[in-house]
């Protein structure tokens, strides 16, 4: 079997009537799809990944890309993907890598949950006229307040509150490291979250000096490779996140290839240039929940108990019990990453087959923590495939305090979800460290796009809340009465504790 025996994924065509031979497509495609041959642009469609960079840059709209121009004989079991993975592995004998989130054609639970609105018996609230409160605090809350009346009749608050992060909107950006994505991408997102009164994660890649101006809006990450971690790093973050797992690849570590580790990434990560950065599957100092508790305590001690500590886990079958252990470790928030969570690179078998949907994970964790009376001990941050304001609203109604987005923020900066992040040649300047490509992403422009996304979603959440007669996000949180299930089976409805439509 030689290369070329597999049908190409995309067929690229240029309308020669429109093309003016400006060669922008050639300049913009890092994969070498186009080259000039005499007076004609020659196209090697086999190189195309459908990133749409050329389409976006073509001044004449002359380019069309057709997906799967050659069909295999149709077979319900032996899909194109199944067959091609075998060709690939027959050739290489290796694990098949894939990018972005779960690509299986599984129904979205979010899409089968419907939101409520008021009619007659209670008035909807107009966010244009009435206050609408989305302010969210992430961190431990006391189970009860101890309030005592002084002799002069004034009340005195005896309870001391643990540090909390204040979010003006319940949306944050999850952890995408410098190395996995470019500094320009991080700068754009950091400026956006600072502007919108919310937070983003650094990922396991350290904090580049250029990001320090936004450090009060950054959550620093301690993952199994401990890259970039020192006391200065910990102290700069508004909060610290211990990353145990990731929804796109639960149970395995990470691998940043050496070609992405240039001088700057090397300094920020505190590793030698061009060396592979391998994050092991487990933390080698965490082999049990007690060990996690020790790390949480160590980080709190190191930062004088001034910062909330998050623990991020992948949504796996036993997620509720794991979260309940984390809630007892003195961690302040648990981040649950569902099986649709994105990634730069993950083994395809993991991306598509390990972990559970975030909707079920939120419901199970919230229920478990409540049944044990420890829901106030910890905030729940949900992530993994959140696409729009409706997903955010539904996640909160199921019981989340806030959510992380990842892919959505990248899309706001131009990402077309081509899923080729692992090749390090992202034509949009996002998942790459090549200067000629990262220069394409201008933080002074793109931060505004990310900020606009936050603004738009926040407005939509306000409208959805107002329509439901709710003017404070606390009253949406865990309010599963305002959700109904459409075309979900009874077992699923029991897990979600949601009634069917019409009930």
């Amino acid at each position, binding site marked *: 079997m030689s290369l070329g025996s597999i049908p190409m994924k995309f067929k690229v065509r240029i309308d020669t009537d429109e093309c003016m031979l400006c060669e922008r497509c050639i300049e913009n495609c890092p994969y070498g799809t186009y080259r000039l041959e005499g007076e004609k642009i020659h196209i090697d469609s086999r190189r195309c990944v459908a990133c749409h960079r050329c389409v976006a840059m073509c001044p004449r709209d002359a380019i069309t890309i057709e997906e799967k121009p050659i069909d295999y004989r149709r077979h319900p079991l032996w899909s194109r993907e199944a067959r091609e993975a075998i060709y690939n592995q027959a050739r290489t004998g290796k694990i098949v890598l894939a990018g972005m989130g779960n690509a299986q054609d599984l129904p979205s639970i979010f899409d089968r949950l419907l939101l409520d609105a008021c009619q007659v018996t209670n008035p909807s609230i107009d966010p244009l006229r009435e206050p609408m409160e989305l302010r969210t605090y992430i961190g431990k809350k006391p189970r*009860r307040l101890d309030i005592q009346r002084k002799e002069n009749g004034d009340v005195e608050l005896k309870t001391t*509150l643990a540090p909390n992060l204040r979010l003006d909107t319940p949306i944050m950006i999850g952890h995408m490291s410098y190395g996995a994505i470019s500094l320009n991408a991080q700068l754009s997102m950091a400026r956006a979250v600072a502007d919108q009164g919310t937070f983003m994660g650094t990922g396991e890649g350290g904090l580049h000096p250029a990001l320090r101006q936004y450090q009060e809006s950054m959550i620093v990450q301690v993952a199994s490779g401990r890259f970039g971690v020192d006391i200065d790093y910990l102290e700069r973050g508004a909060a610290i996140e211990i990353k145990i797992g990731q929804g796109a690849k639960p149970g395995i570590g990470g691998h940043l290839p050496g070609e992405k580790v240039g001088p700057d990434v090397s300094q920020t990560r505190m590793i030698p240039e061009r060396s592979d950065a391998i994050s092991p599957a487990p933390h080698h100092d965490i082999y049990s929940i007690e060990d996690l508790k020790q790390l949480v305590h160590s980080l709190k001690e190191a930062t004088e108990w001034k910062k909330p500590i998050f623990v991020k886990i992948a949504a796996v079958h036993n997620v509720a019990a794991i979260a309940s252990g984390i809630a007892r470790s003195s961690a302040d928030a648990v981040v649950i990453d569902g099986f649709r969570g994105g990634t730069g690179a993950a083994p395809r078998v993991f991306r598509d087959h390990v972990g559970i949907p975030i909707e079920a994970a939120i419901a199970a964790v919230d229920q478990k923590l409540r049944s044990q*009376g420890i829901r106030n001990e910890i905030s729940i941050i949900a992530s993994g495939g959140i696409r729009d304001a409706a997903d955010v609203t539904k996640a909160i109604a199921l019981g989340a305090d806030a959510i992380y987005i990842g892919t959505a923020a990248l899309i706001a900066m131009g990402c077309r979800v081509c899923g080729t992040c692992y090749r390090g040649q992202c034509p949009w300047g996002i998942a790459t460290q090549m200067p000629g490509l990262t220069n394409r992403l201008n933080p002074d422009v793109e931060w505004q796009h990310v900020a606009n996304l936050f603004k738009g979603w926040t407005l939509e959440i306000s409208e959805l809340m107002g329509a439901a007669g709710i003017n404070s996000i606390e009253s949406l949180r*865990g309010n599963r009465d305002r959700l109904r299930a459409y075309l979900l089976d009874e077992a699923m409805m029991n897990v979600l504790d949601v009634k069917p439509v019409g009930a």
Partner: protein
Amino acid sequence: MCGIISVIDRSRSGMDGSSIKKALSLMDERGSGEGAGYAAYGVYPDYADYYALHIFFDNLVEPKVAVDEILRKWGHIEDQEEIPTVEQPDLRRTHIPWRYFFKPDISLMPGSRTPDEDIVMKLVMQINTTIPGAIVFSSGKNIGVFKASGWPEAVADFYQIDKYEGYIWLAHNRYPTNTSGWWGGAHPFNLLDWSVVHNGEITSYGTNRRYIESYGYRCTMFTDTEVVAYLCDLLGRKHRLPEDLMVRAFAPPFWDEIDSMPEDQQKLSQAIRLTYGSALMNGPFAIVVATAEGIVGFTDRIKLRPLIAAESGDRLYISSEEAAIRRMEPNLDRVWMPKAGEPVIGRVRI
């Protein structure tokens, strides 16, 4: 829509139920004839040390035998009888209202600081969730709730409330929406010392319910008002928040207001919102809550339901309508409209 009215006599002078019946009947426009009820404090002076358990029985065989058994297991029944009623032409009797005067055996709940109340609360939850055909709708000391499906005047005459004397009265005229007009769904709702009447709809019910159920309360009445009584019990009795701060948890100031408060107030209000965010009640409502010590009236944070207060001598009135108050007392010293979320508090003099 619903209409509510309540009165407290701060000197603890008794008032019979005849005038509040007239006041509630004046608001018939706000009801549908499918539910009305009254709660009165101080009605059982001879049994003041006993928990007066008012129960709707579907029959006096299986459910009553089960209730008798569980009560005897947990304490002593001093007295019991069918609550006296007089048939009304437009009130269909679907339950048998019964009352027990009960004293729990506190030695059965060691380790509790309030064993008698905890036992009674446990029994109420247990009966309401596990004994079919029995619903406890009133469980306080020296307190009686009288409610049924019907117009205010029919319910009042059915129970002959003019024969009871109380220093606090709460009354409610129901226009049911969320649940049908069954007897248990009529207001007031009561648990131990707490009684609640409520006009409106709590849009945060799902959140409030998940919160309160994690503390062992069980919502069994299929209506949002019940949760208010349980929240009062949790915050007021168990967590010992003063009434004004309890209301601040239920209908807190907006963050903009909190941000501009003096530092200590800001800290307190922020702590309340963070700790009791799940107890925040949203949606349109006007609520009056009573305990043996007094009454508190408040509305949602943007006052989407009416609430008016008035005073005359020792008496404080809180109602949906001024006209209803004037039906009880034409000569008022003062009448005012409380602001959104601002509690109106009437305490008995000690």
